[in-house]
């Protein structure tokens, strides 16, 4: 997969620090599943975390902390062992875990204008959704109050800035006003996370927005 648009340093650093809301962490983890370059950059930021931990002033432990830990070890592993995520078709493993299968198991809801969506997760003031945009159709012209991260899973879209294909990630913020258009050919499927409602510039989508949860 030829990836041209990557996670930003700021996002990677927040991810390395464990500071991203779940919805953004899901988009980041999905991109990282495709992209060894971002994995390596993440590793570099995690190395800062390691150095910070190594150099920091320690806090006082309980008097029997080591003994209690050895007793835990003797009792055997208690933390749940995660099932190893497996690649399942078009969806990267972390996303497949949320969806509970591949694209076929997604329950889409039409939101008009050739666009369907499925909300995947929300919490910490941010939400992530899958968007299915019919080829050649546009997501209405919109701006952002907060951060929006969009990962292309299938097909491609273009906006005023560039073309985004499978594995590419677009990071938009309050300064971005754009009209993404799905390229002709395969329908475009994206995973998008936002931490504030989108601002649509036309009257009709603004009304639609209130009951479509976008």
């Amino acid at each position, binding site marked *: 997969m030829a990836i041209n648009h990557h996670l930003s340093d700021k996002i990677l650093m927040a991810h390395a620090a464990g*500071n991203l809301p779940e919805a953004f962490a899901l988009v980041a983890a999905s991109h990282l599943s495709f992209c060894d370059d971002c994995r390596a950059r993440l590793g570099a930021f995690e190395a800062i*975390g390691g150095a910070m931990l190594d150099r*920091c002033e320690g806090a006082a432990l309980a008097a029997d902390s080591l003994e209690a830990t050895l007793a*835990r070890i003797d009792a055997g592993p208690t933390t749940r062992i995660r099932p190893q995520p497996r690649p399942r078709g078009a969806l990267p493993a*972390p996303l497949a875990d949320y969806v509970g299968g591949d694209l076929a198991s997604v329950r889409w809801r039409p939101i008009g204008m050739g666009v369907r969506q499925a909300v995947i997760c929300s919490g910490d003031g941010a939400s992530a959704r899958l968007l299915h945009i019919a080829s050649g159709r546009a997501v209405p012209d919109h701006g952002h109050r907060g951060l929006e991260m969009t990962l292309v899973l299938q097909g491609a879209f273009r906006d005023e800035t560039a073309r985004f294909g499978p594995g590419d990630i677009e990071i938009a913020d309050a300064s971005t006003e754009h009209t993404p258009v799905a390229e002709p050919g395969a329908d475009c499927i994206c995973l998008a996370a936002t931490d504030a409602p989108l601002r649509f510039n036309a009257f009709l989508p603004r009304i639609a927005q209130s009951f479509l949860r976008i």
Partner: protein
Amino acid sequence: MMMFRASGSEFPDACIGMVAYVLSAPAKIRVQEGLGVVEDASPDDWTSALLQVRDGRDRDAFARLFRHFAPRIKAFLRRGGMGDAQAEDCVQDVMATLWNKAHLYDPTRATVATWIFTIARNRRIDMLRRVRPEPEDLPWGPEPEPDQADAFALRQEAQRLGEAIAQLPDAQRSLIERAFFGEVSHSEIAAETGLPLGTIKSRIRLALDRLRQRLN
């Protein structure tokens, strides 16, 4: 002390130079007032301690790792806003995980400190919310011994990174520290660290490429 395992004839010359370097570096011992002799261990020592835990289930090696890292993990969790009792529970859990997952440690991709940091970070997220999206894991093992020269080079890069952090102006270092200790939100994190991350990134990228090659 590092252990280089020669496999057949492919024992790169570079390794020999590194062994000489490691052997020439004296183990640093300092005496802290009232605390007796405290080992000021280097990343090499932590790696060998973790390998002793992994291969020999060595409790003394584990205790050395515990004495260094457990109080620091606790500081990390407390500064992120966790209460004392929960942080203590989490520290013990993280250190038990280190014991249970020692076989998964890959010294060509992370130092021991970095690996422990990621375990503690993940555990903190798990305590705050139910689901933690994780990138597709690269299958690890049954692998031959990870390349010792690569592991050594990564530790060297990490050491340089540590030195660069030490040389940052106080205000900047404190900003980065607060970001990693969870004291600021993601939107407040500054993108520019002023740290030379290119070389350590290249090292990790190389390790990932080699892993992919072995898998294919």
